[in-house]
């Protein structure tokens, strides 16, 4: 049997998976790596450790999961967006990679955001002006590091480009990942001069942009030998995890949306046109030529619920997280929808879409003397979902959404799924492929191998295995609460600023 290997390089771990040519998952191996915070605003990762973890996951996959009789025919890559790694002319990293969560470019972002130049760059590149964006990070390097160090930089690459470089010796970046750098013109598919000027670099300091199905890549013979691979194995560059997760959820045309709630979250739609929002609240990334994935990301997904569990969950030496989470969710289930008017703003980590306010903070509002611990649990879950809904509502001003496909560890928990359905007032679907990014990568590879005419046809092979239907009276009630939620989120902005100043 022939199969495809997908490598998904995420924020905390790499996942190597194998799919047969009809996109059935054969197995997965993963390995994690840490994020370092040498300063509070900094978030960095060691590119060598990530590379080794890729090799480790692959080795585990070949040795433990797959029969020797199977034959790998293609390797394809998916990866988190927005990372920046400066390398010298020998391809040696000059420091750790700076990842999306890094906020060191706060001032640079602020400066650009409120300017005409910022608006123009956003329109051309599709990436919101925000410290997450490589555009901002590279500008930061330019102003905050020594000229002699800057001179050593040959190129700025992403973690994925570095991993592919290690494996093949070739430096390329796919249109999809390039479109999340804030430096790439998503209409013309080349590096955008005005953005390059702002970052103070030249286009030759970035990799050559290629289509997501680009496969003129060759594994180094050492890796062919190490993994005993057929020398003819295809290496396909792939795309970003967000875009591939949308494809892997079966959404590549207008009318549908995906909701992801993992530790962070996002609502995404696909279409032939970019969404133009003058307040710059959406991203527009490229899945492939002519298809854009648009939407909004939230910082405050499952990570907020985990915070709640750690602070207020059952204590005891041997209670593990998963058990504690399930305990709390069971208690929340018994509380009526709306938590009897107790409202939670989940902005513990500041917020991106739709507020784009790094100073936003969390709050429980409307507490009365009859509220119990269990109401707080339910309110916490509902607050996380109102935030996702506020992104969804905004998207619906531009696109009609019929079907909602949900994925991510938290969104697919039964209580989360039901509340999502009730809040949106729509049926939500859970697909057979839990790991949508890897599934999307596999679809891309099998299309390239000629199995399908195009990605749209490939995406139709994704099947839903579970649905949740909305309860009308709950939907009514959530509608009222979510309006108050939206109002408060904006109304409190000034007070958030003052509180943040005190929090230091």
């Amino acid at each position, binding site marked *: 049997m022939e199969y495809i290997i997908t490598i998904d390089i995420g924020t905390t*771990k790499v996942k190597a998976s194998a799919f047969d040519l009809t996109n059935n998952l054969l197995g997965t*191996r*993963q*390995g*994690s790596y*840490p994020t370092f915070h040498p300063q509070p605003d900094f978030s960095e990762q*060691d590119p*060598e*450790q990530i*590379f*080794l*973890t890729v*090799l*480790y*996951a692959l080795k*585990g996959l070949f040795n433990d999961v797959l029969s020797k009789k199977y034959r790998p025919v293609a390797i394809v890559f998916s990866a988190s967006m927005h990372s920046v790694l400066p390398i010298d*002319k*020998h*391809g*040696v*990293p000059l420091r750790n990679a700076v990842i999306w969560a890094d906020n060191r470019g706060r001032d640079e972002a602020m400066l650009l955001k409120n300017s005409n130049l910022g608006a123009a760059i956003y329109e051309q590149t599709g990436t919101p002006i925000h410290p997450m964006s490589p555009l901002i990070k590279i500008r930061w390097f330019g102003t905050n590091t020594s000229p002699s160090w800057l001179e050593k930089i040959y190129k700025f690459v992403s973690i994925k480009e570095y991993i592919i*470089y290690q494996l093949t*010796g*070739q*430096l390329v970046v796919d249109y999809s990942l390039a479109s999340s750098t804030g430096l790439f013109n998503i209409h013309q598919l080349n590096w955008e001069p005005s953005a390059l000027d702002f970052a103070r670099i030249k286009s030759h300091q970035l990799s050559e942009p290629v289509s997501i199905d680009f496969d003129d890549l060759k594994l*180094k013979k*050492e*890796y062919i*030998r*190490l993994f005993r691979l057929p020398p003819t194995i295809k290496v396909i560059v792939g795309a970003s995890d967000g875009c591939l997760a949308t494809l892997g959820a079966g959404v590549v045309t207008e009318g549908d949306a995906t909701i992801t709630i993992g530790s962070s979250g996002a609502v995404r739609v696909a279409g032939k046109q970019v969404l133009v929002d003058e307040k710059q609240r959406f991203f527009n990334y490229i899945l492939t030529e002519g298809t854009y994935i648009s939407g909004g990301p939230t910082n405050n997904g499952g990570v907020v619920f985990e915070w709640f*569990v*750690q602070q207020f*969950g059952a*204590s*005891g*030496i041997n*209670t*593990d*997280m998963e058990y*504690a989470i399930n305990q709390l969710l069971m208690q929340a289930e018994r509380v009526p929808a709306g938590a009897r008017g107790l409202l939670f703003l989940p902005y513990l980590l500041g917020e991106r879409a739709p507020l784009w306010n790094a100073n936003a903070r969390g709050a429980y509002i409307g507490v009365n003397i009859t509220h119990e611990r269990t109401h707080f649990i339910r309110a916490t879950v509902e607050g996380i979902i109102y935030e996702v809904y506020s992104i969804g509502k905004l998207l619906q001003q531009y696109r009609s959404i019929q079907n909602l496909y949900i994925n991510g560890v938290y969104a697919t928990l039964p209580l989360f799924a039901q509340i999502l359905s009730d809040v949106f007032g729509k049926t939500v679907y859970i697909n057979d492929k839990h790991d949508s990014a890897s599934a999307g990568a596999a679809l891309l590879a099998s299309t390239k191998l000629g199995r399908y005419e195009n990605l749209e046809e490939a995406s139709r092979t994704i099947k839903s295995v579970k649905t949740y239907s909305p309860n009308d009276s709950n939907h009514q009630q959530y509608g009222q609460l979510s309006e108050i939620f939206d109002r408060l989120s904006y109304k409190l902005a000034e007070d958030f600023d003052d509180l943040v100043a005190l929090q230091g």
Partner: protein
Amino acid sequence: MNKPAYSLVPFSDFLHLKELVRLKNQTVRLNDWPIEVKGGIYILCILEGKYEWIIEQKRYVLYPNDVVALCPWQQLGSPTNTLEIGSFAWLKLEVEVFEPSGELRLGAWSAIQENDQKLMGRLMVSHAPMVLNQLKQVNDLLTKIEQELKQAEFAYQTRVNQLLDELLVIIVRQQSQQQNQRRDFPKAFEQLEKMLRDNLDYPWTVEEMATVVGLGSTAFTEKVKAYSGFSPLNYLINIRIAEAMRQLRQTEKSLTDIALDTGFYSSQHFSTTFKKLTGYTPGHYRKRQTGDSS
């Protein structure tokens, strides 16, 4: 300095036991409790009252049965130099070696195994300052040690040393468990990972890593595997090789030096592991990276 209510001296039989003091303070005393380096392994237990002290530049509020354990170079005292009303007890141990790197040798009196002593040193340094809440056993042990010293019955020297060992073991275990109590394995793992990185050349065993996190080795191995995808030792090897890759490319150090720095006992062992994981020998990897400029 303050006059202790009573103090048990001389400890002529116990050169390592420098102080054992129980202090009951009935009036507020100004200028009597400045922030200062205490020296030795210093273990203090609050008995009555409430104290707001600065320990290693951080402010702590301590209540009865809270315990502080300090390394020889660490500081403790009141920000206003004032000693408030209340009582507490402490003992001070002079140890053979205790370095800020975590290297610890208690001395011949202790029956704690050499490796465990080293681990204890590392834990005390990486979790500094150790402030443990509600650890009642410490006061009980201090009382027992006092009694042994006072009564000087048959083999009391042996008993005192055993009790001192027990005291240290309890403190280290409590520190690890306090970690685990927070139910936050990712956080505990992050701290362990940092400790591993800071001591890459140390020959870590799974048991030692498990102690740092406050779990038994079986549960620890399972949790690490579920959380990271690696077995504990594979995870350690992974960080070692990642660091070796960095050094190979960014420094001029010899292969043997890199091998020893990253915890391999020989350059042969290093080469084999490196090749198995990366497909390259270390020498070949270094050449490849500085040779071709694609």
